[in-house]
């Protein structure tokens, strides 16, 4: 039996809000269960404030659950630095870059924290440049980059140390179609290589682009996993993703995956 790379069990999480003398806790997640094996991906959907970012932050170990358990590679990520180091994290709004450093210097800094040797860092940056079309973003100060450039740079930062689990908070929100396809291709390659990818998104094409099921968060619960919209409409992979479709049909269902997903996979 394969150990799930990401497992959430009955996770509850709330946040304190209001002034100190009238503090109350606003529940965000109410008993979320999720289990993803190596090579599986999930696109999280849901309204603003539904808890998508909280789910990602819990898995990243940046937030601790009020109750329930979160495990990444069999360990609680908030307690284990070595586990967190195997996770790639992209926060929202292209944040997470030093604005006065160039894109390349940003990547070199994080590579050093991951103890990557200089030559290997240069090789990986060159490969990511080609893959994500970073171009001039590498030699421009991050603070002077467009939002789309920053989004690709933060993704490059997250991919630099070749993580086992990738957590992406609306990474394609600011990207044009061309760069969105480049990002989808890059992520599919990682999924095919066995990485687990969880991406929150408001874009309808992300699930299809990643050949991943959608999970919807509503009222603090993960209520459904549905097949990507494009796949559901056509019953076939989109042109853009056809080259790497095979992996999607082989993907085993997660524990909470709904019947709709399974049915589609049988089509595939």
């Amino acid at each position, binding site marked *: 039996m394969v150990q799930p790379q990401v497992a959430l069990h009955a996770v509850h999480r709330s946040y304190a809000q209001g002034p100190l003398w009238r503090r109350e806790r606003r529940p965000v997640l109410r008993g979320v269960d999720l289990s993803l094996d190596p090579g599986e991906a999930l696109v999280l959907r849901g309204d603003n404030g539904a808890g998508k970012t*909280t789910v990602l932050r819990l898995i990243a170990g940046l*937030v601790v659950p009020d109750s329930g358990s979160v495990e990444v590679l069999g360990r609680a990520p908030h307690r284990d630095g070595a586990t967190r180091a195997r996770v790639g994290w992209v926060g929202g*709004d292209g944040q997470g870059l*030093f604005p006065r*450093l160039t894109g390349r*210097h940003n990547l070199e800094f994080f590579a050093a924290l991951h103890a990557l040797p200089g030559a290997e860092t240069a090789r990986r940056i060159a490969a990511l440049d080609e893959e994500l079309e970073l171009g001039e973003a590498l030699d421009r100060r991050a603070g002077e980059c467009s939002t789309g450039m920053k989004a690709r740079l933060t993704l490059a*930062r997250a991919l630099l140390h070749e993580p086992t689990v990738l957590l992406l908070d609306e990474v394609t929100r600011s990207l044009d179609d061309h760069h969105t396809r480049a990002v989808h291709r890059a992520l599919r390659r990682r999924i095919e290589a066995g990485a687990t990818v969880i991406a929150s998104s408001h874009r309808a094409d992300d699930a299809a682009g990643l050949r991943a099921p959608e999970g919807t968060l509503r009222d603090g619960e993960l209520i459904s996993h549905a097949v990507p919209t494009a796949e559901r409409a056509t019953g076939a992979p989109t042109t853009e993703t056809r080259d790497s479709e095979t992996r999607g049909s082989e993907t085993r269902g997660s524990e909470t995956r709904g019947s709709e997903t399974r049915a589609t996979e049988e089509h595939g």
Partner: protein
Amino acid sequence: MRTWLAFHRRDTRERRSRLLAGLAEGSGILLTVVTFYFLGELVDRGTSGEVARLNGSYFAFAVNGIAMAGFLAQTVRGHSRALRAAQLEGTLEPMLMTPVPPWRIAVGGALHEMTRGLLRLFVYLGFATALGAVALDGQLAWLPVVLAVAALSFLPFGLLAASYTLLLARGEPVTYLTNAGTLLLAGVYFPSSVLPAWLQPVSLLYPVTHAVQALRSVTSGTESPLASLLWLLGFTAVALPLTAWAFQRCVLVARRRGTLGMT
């Protein structure tokens, strides 16, 4: 070592365009030194008993205190500012997703500011030497050791400021408290012997007092700094692991509250 270098390189790259600010800072130091030179002239003419015991020069006494207190202030401020900036830029969370332990991220972020603090200290000593307040003899060979040990002993204060920043999104209170405590207790502007008897043991326990004393020993060439250095090393051996642990706990509290990247 690679991690420390990475932090330092990052901050040097970020701040290399601040030449004018550096020049202004150097001029400010010169003005302070000159001010205290003339103040020393005045005090020395009064010939108080205390100053007479300090090799007869109040200026030499004060300039060492100011230089070391400035280094401490920059160390503490460096920790809180670097952490706050990382929170605001959203870089704290990605850094915490690397194998580097949180306390090393806090110290690494302050490294550049600490280096600047050391440079400022050297500028102070340079001006003081030009004005005849530093004895250029064999004792000066101790200077690198004194500064290295002082820097290590200041890290616990920095980590406290970083912890406070992490929990309350501001580190100034720790900085103010440390600065004020240093000016009162560490014998910066006046010798601890003029403090009331009940406050003198507190001054003696305050590590910065020993850092200032060690620097004075070296620049005056009158006594060995060994006793002060041993005291500082003992303090660091206890306080550094404690404050590093406290900072890691604060990171955990922030994870529980969900305020790690609080802006």
